[in-house]
């Protein structure tokens, strides 16, 4: 997780962190849903978010959408209330918990692929405040980066 954050962005702002977090969860969801299905994934996500909210009450604004995926709308609106270190720890907790629970329930069968999926989530160089725009896309895939493949 530390490696991923280090390669994903350097000293990201809360806003950038949030976008990385959203992109990462989205990527993990998309990959896991293929194998586990939306119903199972929803149940797992509810467990992860419930536990996360117990540790970081600010995360209680995250919710699982009825149609699948995690809703960030309310969470985004409250991001400004987060202190940078807390937000980073909270994001880290959710992602670690999500990967851990998925790994445990699938006997680590999905873990390598999920880790690979997560490592693809990064910012364009411009996005982190140098060449890109803060509102630019947050996820690149191997293909988008020039065909490094998965």
């Amino acid at each position, binding site marked *: 997780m530390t490696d991923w954050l280090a390669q994903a962005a350097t000293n990201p702002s809360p806003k950038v962190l949030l976008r990385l977090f959203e992109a990462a969860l989205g990527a993990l969801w998309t990959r896991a849903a293929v194998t586990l299905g939306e*119903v*199972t994934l929803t*149940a797992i996500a*509810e*467990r992860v978010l419930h536990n996360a909210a117990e540790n970081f009450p600010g995360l209680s604004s995250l919710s699982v959408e009825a149609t699948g995926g995690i809703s960030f709308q309310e969470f985004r609106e409250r991001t400004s209330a987060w202190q940078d270190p807390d937000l980073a720890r909270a994001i880290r907790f959710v992602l670690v918990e999500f990967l851990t*629970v998925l790994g445990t*329930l699938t*006997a*680590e*069968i999905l873990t390598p692929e999920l880790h690979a999926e997560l490592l693809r989530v990064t910012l364009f160089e411009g996005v982190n405040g140098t060449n890109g725009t803060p509102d630019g896309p947050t996820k690149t895939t191997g293909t988008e980066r020039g065909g490094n493949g998965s």
Partner: protein
Amino acid sequence: MTKNTAIERIETGIPNLDLILHGGLPKGSVVVVSGPPGSGKTILTQQICFHNASPSRRVLFFSTLSEPTAKSLRYLQQFAFFDAKKIEGSVTFVDLGVILRSQGLSSVSALIMEHIKRVKPAIVVIDSFKVFDDLAGSREELRKFGYEIAVNLMAWEATALLLGEYGPGDYETNPFFSIVDGVLVLAQRESLGEQQRFIRAVKLRGTDHSRDEHPFVITRTGIEIFAPRVALKREARPHAGPDRCKTRIDKLDEILGPGIPWGSSLLVGGVAGTGKTVLSLEFIYRGAEAGEKGILFSFEESQERLLAAGHGLGWDLERQIKRGMIEIVFIPQPDIMVEAHLRMMQERIIAMKAQRVVIDSVSVFLHKVTDPQISRERIFHLCSIVQNAGAVGFFPTDIPYGSQKVSRFGVEETVVDGVIILSSTEEGQERERYIEIYKLRNTAHLKGRHNMVIGKGGVTVFPRYMGNLEGDAPPPAVEITTRLHSGIPGLDPLIGGGLLKRSVTLVSGSAGVGKTIMGLQFLLEGAKKRQPGLYVTLEEGPQQLFASAEALGLPLQATVDSGLIQVLYVSRENLRAGQFLTVLADRLTALKASRVALDAATQMLTEHMATDEFRHTLYKLSVRFKNLGITSLMTLETSSLSSTEHVTELGLSPIADNLIMLRYSQAGGQLTPTLTIIKTRGSDHDHRTHAITVAKGGMSIGTTTNGAHGPAIVVPPRKKRPPIGENRKTR
């Protein structure tokens, strides 16, 4: 390459259930516990919960409309596994009855998840889940509900036990059963004449579990499952000390050869009254005396009755029980529960560290089992218990009268390591007991039936072959360098100078011809040279014998008084070949005898001993004498006074090294006793017939009957035979 990861298991804490499930319930699995009301579903589940419950492993127990929580808790308190301190801290009971009644199925799922999120349980129980079948509006709704519950439980890694009164039809048609990971089925029905409970794992994903139905009981300690098929595996455990068990029962060990290998189980078969219980009880008692602990499980005789039986035989069983060397466990026949008692016996044997085990009797223990295959399996389990304990087991079993079987069910003997058969036969006015080692694996034992007596002191066995396990080995040869004087004046020159040491001499003759005198002189001659001798008389009593000897001037009484000669009288009525041979061997060994006279061996021929057996017995006797280095003389009475056509009339000649024929010969209008040497092994002999004289001083050899003198033959003057005791038989 993907690494295989074993699924973590949750121990049930129920004896043997984890063995049946190969380690316990898979963590995170959803298992249905089904069965009719009263089959034990709730108790089974609660026992699992309380075994596992702790602050770090919490249990959430939902009650639906089946049984109010308060009622469930009240009954729960009577079980040993119940721990009130765990309530709420580790075990949380939630009654869903209200919400089910008011809001129906739709709200239940959310409520359940709400509690799961709050408690984060390791184990979730829903009792009963079958209620949802009745509350669901449609099969689709039920399936969706079940699926959601199952998925959520899985996501929370909670191991779920869903209880319900499901039947076999549900397993095939209820869609919920395709979702769940396991199905445990509890049942209750009559079996072997009594109501019994059973449990069976119908399904358990990812587990090569036992498919068998296993009986169980509910006691104050909770549920106890009996699964000998999976719980009783044979293990090789080396026994400390000697590798064979000696029974220490009088002479039984002689026919058991080197002894019984530890870990063996022996069937002790016989019809009623043949001594199975006494033999088995003595096996335990003698072991205790020798420092080997023993346990006897009795299904017929109470401890008091067994103690009384032992007391009557002179055994102090009470003392051994007080010392902790013997345990007697009485289980009345009506109380027998085969699987339960198998487990109990195993525990008692291990707890006591018993080295001797008696199950008296296995035929009663298994009397309700009608299937021979199950009987065989249960005997196998008993054998496994004994083997794993490194003990030796005696399993008495009743054989029906008139049966050709060696066991009650006809299958046990294939499983056990050995079979001892006890029998009795009517002989005259008495019943004679016999013991036979019918089978004993890896042990060279004495074959055939051996006489057995139960009397003061217990069981005494009289080995037929006198303990000589090499009974089939050729007898040692006579010593051609050493000759013994026969004690009969004039006889030694006819047989090359005397009787070869270790030789067997058969003296065949009709009544009154002088056989007894010849035997006495043979022993007295030895006594002169300080060679101890044993005179065995099967015909005349000792006093009669002394009187006869005295009349002839033979110093028998004085020699007996000096201890050089012993006289052993065995009446024909009480003579039992098996006992006789053993007693004889013991006396000869104790006396360190050099000579033995057996007069008359033909008295052993009774209506109960056929000629073949007599011949066989005499042969074994002669071999035994030779093995002991004893020179023997045995007399045989013939029916013919004068016929020389047959020497022994019984085909015994091959047994003898020397064969002497005494006959009457008619000459000059009177009968004259004569002697003819028929055979001498290892030396030349005189082939003529000689007159013999029995007079003061004993028997002596005279002229040849044709008047010719032999080279060293003395012709004693014929004297009138002196009178002897009034009771003397007419010769």
